[in-house]
């Protein structure tokens, strides 16, 4: 979103942080970093860092929220006041309410909660540093946290942003690119099933551009998925 400005974001095919159009920032993943949680993860894309933890399955109160046939997933996405240039006043706002919902919907297709009637699995995403693409970073982290919490899952969910800056189609927008983009698109996928579980777009694109971006997103999600697998294997390989 944000304002179109005359900012030069790509010079000679190179982006402001020295990346190529289809290159992500450095991605770091760590799982099991929060001991008090049933599952947790930390994921960074460049200077965007998301912490995620999962509490549950646990009893859901008040009782009227319980589902007799299945457990439910609840998600809270939040940005720390210090995560952005101008202090963000703490607590939920309209943006975080919407993002909490779409992150939940992005992960719901991947979890099996049928064996947990009347309980809740609570996922928390805290953005501790924001430099664009926070929702997708949060999804990658929460997907790992759910897996480490032992929640039965069909597969992991991988997510990335794609968009159009200075007329060029790119992957993984940083904050400045995001603020000056002609369009940005957030995508989450269950890569092995070719299932898209999150898709949000704003800006202005032709259908051809959109299809091209979706292809880029699909390829990038596959790469991220492999990294998520690695991160999980890394954690558990020494524990036998």
């Amino acid at each position, binding site marked *: 979103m944000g304002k179109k400005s005359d900012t030069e974001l790509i010079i000679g095919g190179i982006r402001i942080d020295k990346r190529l159009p289809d290159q992500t920032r450095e991605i770091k993943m760590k799982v099991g970093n929060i001991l008090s949680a049933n599952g947790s993860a930390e994921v960074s894309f460049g200077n965007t860092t998301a912490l995620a933890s999962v509490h549950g399955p646990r009893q859901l109160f008040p009782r009227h929220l319980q589902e007799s046939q299945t457990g439910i997933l609840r998600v809270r996405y939040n940005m720390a006041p210090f995560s952005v240039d101008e202090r963000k006043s703490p607590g939920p706002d309209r943006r975080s309410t*919407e993002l909490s919902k*779409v992150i939940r919907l992005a992960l719901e297709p991947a979890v099996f909660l049928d064996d947990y009637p009347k309980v809740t699995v609570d996922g928390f995403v805290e953005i501790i540093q924001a430099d664009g693409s926070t929702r997708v970073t949060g999804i990658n982290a929460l997907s790992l946290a759910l897996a480490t919490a032992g929640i039965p899952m069909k597969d992991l969910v991988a997510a990335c942003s794609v968009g159009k800056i200075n007329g060029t189609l790119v992957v993984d927008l940083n904050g400045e690119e995001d603020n000056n983009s002609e369009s940005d698109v957030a995508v989450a996928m269950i890569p092995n099933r070719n299932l*898209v579980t999150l898709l949000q777009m704003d800006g202005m694109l*032709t*259908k051809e551009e959109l299809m091209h971006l979706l292809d880029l997103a699909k390829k990038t999600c596959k790469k991220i998925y492999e990294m998520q697998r690695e991160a999980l294997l890394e954690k558990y390989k020494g524990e036998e």
Partner: protein
Amino acid sequence: METYALELIRNGKRIDGRELTQFRDIEIKEGIIENAEGSAYVRMGNTQVIAGIKMGVGTPFPDTPNEGILSVNAEFTPLASPDFESGPPGENAIELARVVDRGIRESKSIEMEKLVIAPGEKVLSVFIDIYIIDNQGNLLDAAALAALSALLNTRIPKLDAEGKIIRGEHEGKLPVVHKPITVSVCKVGDKLFLDPAKEEETILDAKLSIAVMEDEKICAMQKQGSEGIEFDVLEKMVDLAMKKSMELRKLVK
């Protein structure tokens, strides 16, 4: 009722006898609220939505000193459904308002730079309030249509010498130059359909709402629903939304 609707969709039929890609009858009434700067009532089948526009004078955001302010809010009033409760907007109301907002904002539908009174200090603000009167399905498409229709008949209030609004007096119309149309494409199994009735909403796997411009460019999208969408189906959904948007745009004056 829900399983019946599901059974029908799987066989390519609708609970009210419509084709899969057929909308219910749409009625639009413009300028229904005299006290509002702009307004519209939209009835889509039995779904009823009112959009009212009020304008005010405000301080521009620091990052857009040369543009007016746009704000979209949605109220799921308790009268519209037994499922709506009074109180602050819930996540569905907030999502709906934000998706309508993005369609209008990203399309550059309103010429925001023409709403500046003093750059960086004083601008006109446009408040779109969406009121759900009866929820019988497909609130988003109805709300987006109501918001656009209301914008198109919005009059700019007159200002006095001190820059305060003189209520009831107007000078000129709000400059609205594009007409983005939002079409939500619903999916159950391998079936795609449009304009879900309330019973159909409870059984859909996923929904992709797409805001389409006059020249078929896309300016906003939002995936909803608790199942994923197969990657290869996305293009079909986009095509369907593009086609239907042309039909709906004819209804907007």
